[in-house]
């Protein structure tokens, strides 16, 4: 019998649809969302696919409600996601913070369009990268991934669910309009070839269970609602019992652990694709659709005799600090193309720590960055050194 959840095969499919299929293959059975260009196709496909699988699709009254609903569903023990774009992402921020504070696994796919405000609803942007990092109030760590193709929309959505379950955190897929709407070859593997991670369950009795007592890796086993553990979960600063503690000590313990469970595991979380770094004079660091342009530019530079390399960020948050510091110490320049006025480049500069010049190739939105623009930045960087 055909596997309805994992549509094994080769398809010509857009990125939004591939994101759905990745989610379903990862075991997502709850989707709450609100229509918004250019992420609507994710909700549309989910509304058709989830009922076939015994899952729930619900179109909420806004993105605030969508985010709240997936948190509730996740505590019900079901893998849950939502999708949106800039304006909806802004509305989700408060409840993303609740998800981080209460350590609730879930996935948010942001198919970015150009902002601010309504901006260019149908056209590409990468302007929400810092919002993903800092958009909710307070101090915390996040996990965000950046797919650059429909195939990666599938692959990284599966990974987003795995990371969210493993580290008990809302994981953000920072896609963009071009990746979402572009049709390309997408290969969906067989079910047994897809590695899945589920949340760790408590091994102790309800009487001995502390909802926020972490295992050595900093992550606490999670009891679902209805499992008999009678948990109390709050967005207030809380102790290991989950009970509010209105004092600086409880605050420091909770926030430190929320930070450390990501920072302490960043080597396991961070993934990059490193191309031609060994002998590189100039390295382009890129993510999302801009990484496609960058790959093209690096190839052209190599054909023209320039020793260029590429670091393609699969994980954008946490940022690959160690790798960048190492590379910055042995190249003549780093270049980052991004469709905003310079966001991730600030992090790149910070990590480079002055070891080499860091250049931004900026596009303010509405189109992808042409490979030729990046190539000319590579050439300028080489010239500038001479």
């Amino acid at each position, binding site marked *: 019998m055909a596997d309805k959840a994992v549509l094994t095969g080769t398809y010509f499919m857009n990125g939004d649809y591939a994101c759905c299929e990745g989610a379903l293959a990862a075991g997502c059975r709850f989707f709450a969302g609100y229509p918004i260009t250019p992420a609507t196709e994710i909700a549309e496909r989910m509304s058709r696919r989830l009922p076939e699988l015994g899952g729930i699709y619900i179109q909420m009254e806004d993105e605030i409600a969508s985010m709240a609903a997936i948190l509730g569903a996740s505590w019900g023990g079901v893998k849950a996601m939502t999708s949106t774009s800039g304006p909806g992402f802004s509305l989700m921020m408060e409840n993303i913070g609740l998800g981080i504070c209460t350590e609730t696994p879930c996935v948010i796919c942001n198919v970015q369009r150009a902002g601010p405000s309504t901006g260019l609803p149908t056209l590409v942007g990468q302007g929400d990268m810092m919002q993903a990092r800092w958009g909710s109030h307070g101090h915390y760590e996040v996990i965000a991934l950046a797919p650059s193709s429909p195939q990666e929309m599938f692959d990284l959505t599966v990974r987003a669910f795995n990371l969210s379950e493993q580290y008990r955190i809302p994981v953000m897929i920072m896609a963009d309009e071009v990746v979402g709407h572009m049709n390309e070859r997408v290969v969906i593997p067989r079910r047994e070839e897809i590695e899945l991670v589920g949340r760790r369950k408590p091994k102790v009795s309800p009487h001995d269970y502390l909802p926020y007592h972490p295992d050595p890796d900093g992550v606490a086993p999670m009891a679902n609602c209805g499992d008999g553990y009678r948990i109390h979960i709050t*967005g207030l600063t809380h102790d290991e019992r989950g009970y509010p503690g209105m004092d600086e000590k409880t605050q420091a313990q909770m926030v430190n652990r929320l930070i450390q469970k990501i920072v302490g595991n960043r080597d396991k979380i961070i993934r990059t694709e490193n191309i031609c770094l060994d002998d590189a004079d100039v390295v382009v660091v890129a993510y999302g659709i801009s990484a496609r342009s960058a790959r093209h530019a690096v190839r052209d530079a190599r054909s023209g005799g320039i020793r260029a390399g590429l670091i393609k960020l699969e994980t954008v948050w946490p940022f690959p600090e160690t790798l960048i510091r190492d590379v910055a110490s042995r190249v003549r320049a780093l270049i980052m193309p991004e469709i905003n006025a310079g966001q991730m480049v600030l992090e790149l500069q910070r990590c480079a720590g002055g070891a080499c010049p860091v250049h931004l190739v900026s596009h303010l939105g509405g189109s992808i960055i042409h490979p030729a623009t990046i190539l000319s930045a590579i050439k300028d960087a080489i010239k500038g050194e001479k």
Partner: protein
Amino acid sequence: MKTKKAEKTVPRHPMEELIRSERLPHIWCAGCGIGTVFGSVMAAIQKSGYDLDKTAIVSGIGCTARMAGYIRLDSFHTTHGRALPFATGLKLARPELKVLVVSGDGDLLAIGGNHFIHAARRNIDITVICVNNLNYGMTGGQLAPSTPFGAKTTTSVTGCPEEPFNFCYLAAACGAVYVARWTSLHIRRLTNSITEAMQKRGFGFVEILTPCPTSFGRRNKIGTALETLKFYHERSVIRNDIDPKEAPIDFGSNIVVGKFVDTERPTFMDNYQLSCKNRIGDWPDFEGTIVPENQAG
């Protein structure tokens, strides 16, 4: 051994199994009505006979929302106004759960107003308990969508210039299958109402008028907790089964309480399951059985 002896002499509190006693003392002020409502909620949960391990409480932010922290059930203290969409996700993901939402008037119907009308329209199978103390108590007494016209709050020192909602009328108009209003004096009727609402399939709504002596009473002629309760005692008139449109809260004359709506209609899940089987049917249903009224007979 000593502790065993102590257990024998101290009588068990009837709600002991439902209270996180290690969290006491609670945050509520002397004279606050929330404790009374909390007692009724717990009594109704016990009375309704649902499996306590399958009963969950969801709340937002505010004095009433703190109930979630004192009850020994799976309990979720979420963000301001968002208890209903959180509860919607929880209930749909795990339908075997009995889900209650406890909320204050500002939480539920100001910041959460949009979610309220849609959760009622969808007929999500949850029970919503709304403590209406006529103002924002936790933040020190600001005007709310329940504040009576002319009442004094810290953000309406010359009198509230806005007309309040009639929450029960709103709930009924949005499609709630169970709607009732009591005061925190009507403990027996309130407990019965919460039990009935829990036993309904669909969106049940119970509003409770309570005193807030600290933030509201002292700025208004309604006075202390005891004076407020006395006022409610004198002015409350029970009118079961009337259209809630005809049941405004009029402090100048009568405060109409009672059970206003008790009806049936398919829940979100009922209809969702039909849609999954492609059995919702066509719209418009030109060959349907509905006969326009002027052609009937």
